[in-house]
């Protein structure tokens, strides 16, 4: 939302409402109107109407409440005009006037503390019945407020493709009759995991873009971090804390991990003075809370690993035994060969390169990671450190054959050139 001209006070108030309360407003409208498309449309209309009304009458005391009630009025009015029958209108009235426990949850005075609608919207957009790429596109649009163009640009897809993904997501909500409800307790964990997965995938795509020239897409990393923050506010689950911690700890290195040419700087060569201490402290504090207050899950353990790196001055002074411990834990949660690879690398640092290499070889030689360029690059690195030049050269060459992204390819070629 950007408003070019007019009263700067109105402009600021609208931008403020959009930035801080958009998800809440949209969620409430979906609940009141029972339809995501309509909610989006009337919210947009309400913002447009507010420009005139607020310039005439001044900014209202509760801008968010004003926008919701203007949008709701437009929504109900629109349904009436479409002559979809009195029955539906009655139903909508009942929906908005039912007030459990004598509390009217449409009363603007009650909107502040109660944020169920935001959570409902998040769970709706990330429902596992929606195909994954559509789920991501829908959530980026509805939860993170990205435009279709921004989504298309971030994923290097045509605008039409992004649009189609969103449409498909909305169709699958309708077809599967996915309700606008919070999941029941016994399903909450699984559904929350689905939400966290979407946030994580968005961040990963922004942090290490899988295609294209540029390695980092800040629009995605920023969207994911704000979303993770919102989740921590809405639902204090230890894994939400773990995920926010993980993203902050990764973000803390963003100034150091890519050089001026857009090339990757590996951890060992990063200038650690460029790491953002504030983010590291916040992230590490969150890891501590998460480790204590619940299951040490996928995100929490990864965050714990990154926090160990963040606390160290150099690769040599890193607490590798703590890292190996966390990888052992992580292997219990996720039997992924990539985790096994990283554990082998950590053992290579804690003990000797030989020890690490002994664990990596079976993963890449006809093993589950034989097609994974990072595994070959890791093998090359360990082989080089123990002076095994032939194995290192071969492994770097294998990594290059497996289609690394453009910045990764440049990095591997640079490393290979050093030993040729």
């Amino acid at each position, binding site marked *: 939302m950007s408003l070019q001209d007019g009263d700067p006070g109105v402009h600021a108030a609208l931008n403020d409402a959009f930035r801080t309360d958009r998800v809440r407003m949209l969620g409430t409208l979906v609940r009141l109107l029972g339809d995501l498309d309509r909610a989006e449309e009337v919210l947009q209309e309400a913002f447009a109407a507010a420009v005139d009304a607020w310039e005439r009458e001044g900014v209202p005391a509760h801008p968010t409440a004003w926008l919701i009630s203007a949008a709701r009025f437009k929504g109900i009015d629109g349904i009436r005009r479409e002559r979809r029958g009195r029955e539906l209108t009655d139903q909508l009235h009942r929906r908005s006037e039912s007030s459990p*426990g*004598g*509390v009217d949850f449409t009363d603007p*005075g*009650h909107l*502040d*503390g*109660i944020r169920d609608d935001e959570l409902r919207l998040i769970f709706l957009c990330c429902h596992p019945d929606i195909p994954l790429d559509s789920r991501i596109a829908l959530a980026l649009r509805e939860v993170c407020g990205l435009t279709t163009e921004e989504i298309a640009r971030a994923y290097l897809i045509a605008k039409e493709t992004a649009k189609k993904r969103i449409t498909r997501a909305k169709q699958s909500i309708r077809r599967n009759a996915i309700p606008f409800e919070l999941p029941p307790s016994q399903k909450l964990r699984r559904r929350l995991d689905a939400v966290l997965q979407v946030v994580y995938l968005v961040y990963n795509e922004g942090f290490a873009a899988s295609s294209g020239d540029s390695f980092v897409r800040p629009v995605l990393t920023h969207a994911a971090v704000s979303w993770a923050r919102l989740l921590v*506010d809405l*639902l*204090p689950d*230890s894994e939400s*804390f773990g995920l926010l911690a993980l993203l902050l700890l990764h973000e803390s290195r963003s100034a150091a991990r890519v050089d001026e040419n857009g090339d990757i700087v590996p951890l060992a060569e990063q200038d650690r003075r460029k790491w953002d201490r504030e983010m590291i*402290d*916040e992230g*590490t*504090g969150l*890891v*501590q*809370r998460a*480790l*204590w*207050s*619940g299951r*040490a899950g996928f995100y929490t353990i990864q965050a*714990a690993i990154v*926090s*160990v790196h963040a*606390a*160290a001055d150099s690769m040599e002074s890193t*607490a590798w*035994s*703590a890292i190996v*411990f*966390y990888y052992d*834990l992580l292997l219990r949660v996720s039997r992924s060969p990539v985790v096994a690879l990283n554990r082998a690398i950590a053992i290579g640092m804690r003990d000797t390169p030989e020890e690490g290499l002994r664990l990596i070889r079976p993963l890449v030689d006809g093993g589950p990671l034989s097609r994974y360029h990072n595994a070959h690059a890791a093998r090359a690195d360990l082989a080089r450190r123990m002076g095994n030049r032939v194995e290192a050269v071969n492994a770097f060459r294998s990594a290059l054959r497996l289609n690394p992204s453009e910045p990764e390819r440049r990095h591997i070629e640079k490393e290979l050139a050093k030993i040729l």
Partner: protein
Amino acid sequence: MHFMVYLRMSEGESMNPPSPEGMAEMGKLMMDAFESGMVVATGQLGANATHVSLRSGDVSITDGPFLEGKEFIPGFTIIDVPSREEAIQWATRLRQCMGDGSIHVSPLSATGPEDMQPS
């Protein structure tokens, strides 16, 4: 006996992050506690509790503090151990992982649905 072991924190205050070794130690302590069966539940209370109050029959809902002075509980564990001594011992080990600061141990009595079955 059941005990609640918990931290209290004021809003705006941040936890002093422990050393990497201390944090891994804490992870181990929690894992062992889970595996031995002594953990009944572990969790945290969100910082933003809602305050519901009734005055002359009118309900008012505010985004209120959980306790006076915006204090909240960033982590708690309910443990089932034979004695208060053991509860204090365990809490001390947990605190040692985190470094200087305090930790609270409170006996806890709770009734669940299974306690309400007629015998």
